[in-house]
């Protein structure tokens, strides 16, 4: 069959285009009201409170604060029982991730799904700033005659949302989750100054992250959780005692809240009752007059419902009332009823009318329906007001996302037609028993997109598919090479056990935790990985002749060169490169609080001393890390440059692809999380044995198209298994940013995005590159440089055809998945989990389809082949 590039590229472009069009229609940008409101709720009256302390405890689920069995907040319970605090369970809208939640509790709006993505992609990105949107912090600061002083300590997400807004700040980074104490001590140490009688703040915001970290790391029931709760309780007591004793702070409102909850295993991001039930507590002695006489703590219940349930965004209008500031324009919260009773009952209706009027303005922004106008004018009692508010709130929640249906239909149609065309085109050329079996598997797999729990636990499907693939290959090879198959199977099983996979169950007994508890073993394996990777670079291809510019031979027997002095140059430069990368990982681990075994401490101090760093100096070490990482990348690129130069100047092309792929692997390892680095050892084993299997396959079958088809399938099968085994899921909560800033001093969107992609997909990228190597230089992977002549790279005429077929195979897979996924998303757009399960999956799929398939498979592989 004549395979040409034109139809494949055209189909790829159309399919990617329809997918992107779907994204555009599915995630419309939200319209918001500009400007700031200037109508204070109580007019010129004196506010009930003129100062405010907001203490956000990240992931403080309602039962942590209120439940008899789980809560250690004894002081809080005393406050509730003595009527000095009003407790609530606050419903926090999904996605239950910090950034959208902070937007919710400052703006009062329901989050746009894109907020969740930007939670990851952001960082000092000015477009994130909320300075231009109406929010209660702005109102509080500027609504009185002179600007008030607001200080902030804690999670630096606030600083991204409100750049240059706070008078005194100290941000802590929220992304390194194994630190339970330092993040919080960093906040608490500021209390010494802030809780002194001469302190002159009007607003104090504290955001504690430790409890969330403990949840992520050890789950909600660990002993650390109890200790942390006691610590937090002490801080609440300390603040309360100060507020009640200091004469300056008599009118201070104290707010304790969680930004979201956590699920049974301590993660968050979704919409389960645990994740959406955050605790909320208003504290002030003034509340004694309400005489609520609540009991605390309450017996535990499974729905995390304690006391009255309110919406988390209700705190915006409530704060506006208590502080007497205008309600933020985009607020969708409703004033909490209990607090109205602090004011004379004749004022209640007029207060609520402010809330109603603000709702009406917001409603008319997106809706031309004026029927609510008359209803608004007919309001006369507080009961009516609440009914009206709830009604508008419901409408606004439902229409929070207006899909662009013409885009959706066009993309559904485009993708569907594309899939049919690709299927027809593929089967016209390559229909065989094997391809038919694989296509059936692809179609069956792609139906999983229609089930939310299958999407959440997708790794199980990949495990089954990998096993099925291996078994099928074993069968069509007539059960030859059982040892190699067994080794590959065992290696896959080890990979499967490496990390916690899936979103529902938290298994403590995974290899990651084993390694983290045995630092000597971890660092030994990391070192071994570098050693093996370095050796592979040196021995597998022909890079040892890289600096030998007198080379002119293109015969496959280059053994006469093996004793050349110039090999030493390569050896030394590779050793330096690998050592540098290892030092980088080691120092990174040292900075991030990994346990370092004793025998490596000398290595660290040697590293530090050679840069004249004599004590633990965070900023200097991070500068060193930046330069180390940059040097690694530069070193890899430099050797690649030399190797390519050698090819072009001397025509020495033996093992070029192997050399480049192996060098890039070193960079990928550099970008991988430390406890995942030893996985590459397993990858090397699989790759080696799979090459043996392929060689024997080539002896049994001569059709190259089937070979390419099998390697391509293997590539995306194992890529997916690897991705999930490296701790990836289809939830945004597991995007790992610990390697997104390698070699970068300040935030640069493009670099950070690229590094985030590489560090989260280092396994899939490795397999994608390796598959090229496995197709074209099988003998070299198998250390049989003498047989290089029989490798497919030497087939000048058809090597691009083979790459083309590989892309067609990938496209076939992705296209079937794409069509099913967008149909599922369209179909289930009113499903409960659309924002928490399907939308993140849509984004992940976009990364696989657009970045991995198009950039890496087409781009990088194409370049690799083109220079050979």
């Amino acid at each position, binding site marked *: 069959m004549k395979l040409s590039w034109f139809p494949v590229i055209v189909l790829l472009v159309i399919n990617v285009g329809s997918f992107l069009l779907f994204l555009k229609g599915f995630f419309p940008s939200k319209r918001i009201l500009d400007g700031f409101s200037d109508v204070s709720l109580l007019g010129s009256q004196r506010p009930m409170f003129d100062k405010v302390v907001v203490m956000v405890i990240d992931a403080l689920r309602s039962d942590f604060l209120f439940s008899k069995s789980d809560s250690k907040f004894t002081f809080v319970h005393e406050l509730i029982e003595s009527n000095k605090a009003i407790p609530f369970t606050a419903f926090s809208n999904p996605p239950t991730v910090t950034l959208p939640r902070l937007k919710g509790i400052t703006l009062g709006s329901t989050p746009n799904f894109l907020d969740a993505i930007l939670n990851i992609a952001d960082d000092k990105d000015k477009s994130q700033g909320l300075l231009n949107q109406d929010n209660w912090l702005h109102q509080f600061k500027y609504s009185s005659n002179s600007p008030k002083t607001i200080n902030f300590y804690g999670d630096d997400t606030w600083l991204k949302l409100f750049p240059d807004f706070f008078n005194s700040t100290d941000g802590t980074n929220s992304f390194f989750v194994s630190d339970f104490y330092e993040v919080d001590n960093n906040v608490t140490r500021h209390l010494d100054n802030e809780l002194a009688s001469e302190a002159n703040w009007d607003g104090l915001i504290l955001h504690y992250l430790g409890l969330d970290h403990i949840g992520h790391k050890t789950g909600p029931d660990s002993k650390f959780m109890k200790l942390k709760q006691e610590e937090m309780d002490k801080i609440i007591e300390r603040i309360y005692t100060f507020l009640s004793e200091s004469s300056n702070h008599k009118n201070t409102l104290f707010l304790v809240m969680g930004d979201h909850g956590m699920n049974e295993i301590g993660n968050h991001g979704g919409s389960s009752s645990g994740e959406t039930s955050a605790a909320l507590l208003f504290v002030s002695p003034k509340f004694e007059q309400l005489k609520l006489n609540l009991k605390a703590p309450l017996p535990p219940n499974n729905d995390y419902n304690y006391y009255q349930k309110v919406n988390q965004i209700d705190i915006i209008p409530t704060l506006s009332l208590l502080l007497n500031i205008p309600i933020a324009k985009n607020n969708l919260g409703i004033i909490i009823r209990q607090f109205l009773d602090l004011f004379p009952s004749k004022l209640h209706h007029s207060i609520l009318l402010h809330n109603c009027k603000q709702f009406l303005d917001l409603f008319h922004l997106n809706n031309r329906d004026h029927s609510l106008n008359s209803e608004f004018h007919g309001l006369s009692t507080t009961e009516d007001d609440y009914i009206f508010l709830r009604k508008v709130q419901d409408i606004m929640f439902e229409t929070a996302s207006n899909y662009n249906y013409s885009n959706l239909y066009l993309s559904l149609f485009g993708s569907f037609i594309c899939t049919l065309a690709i299927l027809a085109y593929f089967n016209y050329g390559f229909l065989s028993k094997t391809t038919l079996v694989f296509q059936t598997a692809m179609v069956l797999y792609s139906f999983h997109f229609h*089930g*939310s*729990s*299958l999407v959440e*636990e997708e790794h*199980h499907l990949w*495990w*089954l598919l990998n*096993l099925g693939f291996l078994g099928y290959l074993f069968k069509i090879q007539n*059960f030859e090479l059982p040892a190699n198959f067994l080794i590959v*199977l*065992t290696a896959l*099983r080890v990979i*499967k*056990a490496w990390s916690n996979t*899936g979103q*529902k169950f938290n*298994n*403590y*007994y*995974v290899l990651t935790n084993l390694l983290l508890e045995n630092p000597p073993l971890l660092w030994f394996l990391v070192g071994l990985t570098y050693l093996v990777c370095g050796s592979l670079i040196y021995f597998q291809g022909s890079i040892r002749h890289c600096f030998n510019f007198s080379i002119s031979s293109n015969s496959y027997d280059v053994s006469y060169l093996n004793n050349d002095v110039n090999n030493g140059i390569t050896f030394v430069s590779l050793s330096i490169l690998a050592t540098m990368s290892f030092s980088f990982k080691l120092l990174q681990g040292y900075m991030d609080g990994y346990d370092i075994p004793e025998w490596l401490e000398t290595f660290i101090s040697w590293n530090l001393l050679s840069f004249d760093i004599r004590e633990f100096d965070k900023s200097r070490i991070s500068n060193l890390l930046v330069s180390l990482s940059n040097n690694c990348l530069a070193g890899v690129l430099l050797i690649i440059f030399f190797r390519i130069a050698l090819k072009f100047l001397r025509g020495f092309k033996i093992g070029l692809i192997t050399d480049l792929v192996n060098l890039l692997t070193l960079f990928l390892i550099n970008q991988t999380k430390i406890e995942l680095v030893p996985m590459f050892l397993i990858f090397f084993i699989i790759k080696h044995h799979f090459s043996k299997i392929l060689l024997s396959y080539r002896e049994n079958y001569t059709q190259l198209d089937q070979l390419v088809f099998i390697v391509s399938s293997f590539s995306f099968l194992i890529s997916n298994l690897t991705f999930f085994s490296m701790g990836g899921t289809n939830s945004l909560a597991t995007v790992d940013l610990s390697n997104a800033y390698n070699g970068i001093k300040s935030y640069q969107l493009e670099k950070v995005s690229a590094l985030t992609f590489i560090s989260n997909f280092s396994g899939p990228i490795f397999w994608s590159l390796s598959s090229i190597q496995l197709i074209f230089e099988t003998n070299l992977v198998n250390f049989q440089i003498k047989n290089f002549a029989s490798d497919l790279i030497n087939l000048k005429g058809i090597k691009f055809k083979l790459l083309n077929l590989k892309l067609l195979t990938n496209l076939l897979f992705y296209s079937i998945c794409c069509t099913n996924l967008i149909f599922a998303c369209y179909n289930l757009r009113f499903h409960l989990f659309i924002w928490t399960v399907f939308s993140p999956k849509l984004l992940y799929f976009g990364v696989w389809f657009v970045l991995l398939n198009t950039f890496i498979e087409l781009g990088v592989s194409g370049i690799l082949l083109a220079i050979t």
Partner: protein
Amino acid sequence: MPKQKRKVKFDHDDTEDQEAVVVARVPTIIHKWATIPYHLPLILVGMFKFGLTSHVKQTLVKGYISLICLQAVHSYILYINTVDFPDSSSGKKHRKKNKDNLVLLIASSLVLPVLMSPAVLAILVLLGAPVSSHVIETYLLAAHLSTVVATPLLVTFKLNFANFVSVFKSPDLFCVVCHHQTLSSGLLALVGTWIGVLPIPLDWDRPWQAWPVTLVVGTYIGFFGGSVINLAL
């Protein structure tokens, strides 16, 4: 069906070249309706009645004991309905079975799977069964699986391992397996176990979605279903 087998035999007797063309030396089963393992669905229902979903381990142990007893009976039925593949050395068909020690054969067919079960456990783990938890459940699954699948095979092949291996060397492997009742049942039992894992991660929150209940169900139904479907082939 037996006729077909004979035909195959004569074909190869003509060539007398056993090395070049590999023949699956499969024993023949007569009266297939009699050798259907009727006891398997009974045991399965019984295990559910006795609380498989609430006390997984205890019920699996109880079920295993009854399985062993009933497998012994089934083995006997299977034995009297099996015709050996003719021995190449004598070239004659053995209709009489007085050479075999029936008690020893059935006893060893029942004991061997028990001895095999650690190996089956290892294979299950290799194929993805959990290691950190549920090891006992997995072991019980391995025991059930090996007894359900291996005992009838051992009886059918009369512990002749070489004949069993010859099945895998035949060029039309799938055809041979499909047309043989015990082999196809065994295959479907393995497939059933394999498919049995699928419902576990679904969020239906049913008590039977526990490891390894669905897999045991898959094994039993697979084996029983395989032998029933084979009647039609």
